């Protein structure tokens, strides 16, 4: 979609949520306390959900809030509080100045590389006409355009994903089991 036809309201909120996401991510990597870091990451994920909605992916936005900000980050916070890591003062967390400089250089190099990639020419012929996804969502609802390919073209991947989740559940239970307790083996 070209810039001319986008309303100012849309562009303003797109930049607003993008800047909130980046600022929260910066706050996330600089916080000492793990709890504060996790909450800033939740903020980043909410902003990304708003960006998904602005990009015509309403269902992905909802799932982002439910699964990422809801489920995954709650598990993280649960583990942080279970291990009682909340005290920022007694954990010297960030690495030394040499590491920070090296990480900054690696980050700049990586940023340059990713930018070069985003400037790469993408094949025009593959692009759908402007607003196709938005029209699909308007015609069939937010879920049906995703559910169709998920249960037809990508059915095998979907089934394999269920096996992956089962393996993860079994693995988490085995790893979390106390070794040496009476019922362990």
């Amino acid at each position, binding site marked *: 979609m070209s810039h001319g036809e*986008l309303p100012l309201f849309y*562009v303003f909120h*797109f930049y607003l949520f*993008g800047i909130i996401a*980046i600022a929260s991510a*910066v706050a*996330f*990597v600089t916080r000492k306390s*793990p709890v504060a*870091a*996790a909450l800033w*990451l939740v903020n*980043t994920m909410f902003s*990304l959900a708003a*960006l*998904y909605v602005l*990009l*015509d*992916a309403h*269902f*992905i936005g909802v*799932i*982002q809030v439910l*699964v*990422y900000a809801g489920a*995954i980050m709650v598990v*993280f916070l649960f*583990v942080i509080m*279970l*291990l009682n*890591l909340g005290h920022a003062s007694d*954990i*010297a*967390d*960030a*690495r030394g100045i040499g590491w920070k400089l090296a*990480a900054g250089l690696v*980050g700049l190099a*990586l*940023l340059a590389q*990713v*930018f070069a990639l*985003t400037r790469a020419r*993408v094949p025009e012929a593959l692009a*759908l006409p402007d607003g196709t*996804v938005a029209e699909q969502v308007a015609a069939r609802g937010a879920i049906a*355009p*995703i559910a169709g*390919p998920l249960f037809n073209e*990508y059915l095998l991947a979907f089934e394999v*994903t269920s096996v*992956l*989740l089962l*393996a*993860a*559940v079994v*693995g*988490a239970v085995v*790893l*979390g089991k106390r070794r040496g307790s009476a019922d362990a083996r």
Partner: protein
Amino acid sequence: MLAESLFFSAVLFTIGVVGVLTRRNAIIVFMCVELMLNAVNLTFVAFARVYGVAGQVFVFFVMTVAAAEAAVGLAIIIALFRHRQTVNLSNINLLKG
């Protein structure tokens, strides 16, 4: 808004990488990996708007793998904490040459 989305995604991914390199708390390193996965998801959604909805299906799979990874990874961190009483990565150096 494809170019802007790719810009935001690149910046978020880089912040995640710098976080992995500069932090020593295993849980925060793990959350930085989640941030990188989120950045990739933003790229997928942005391209899905131009090239069709298959990109959104891939975001689904990425989220599923992230959930599985979070469950197993946090179980590993809990087991590690039980063993060493710390999650500071500079104290976990058994394989360091």
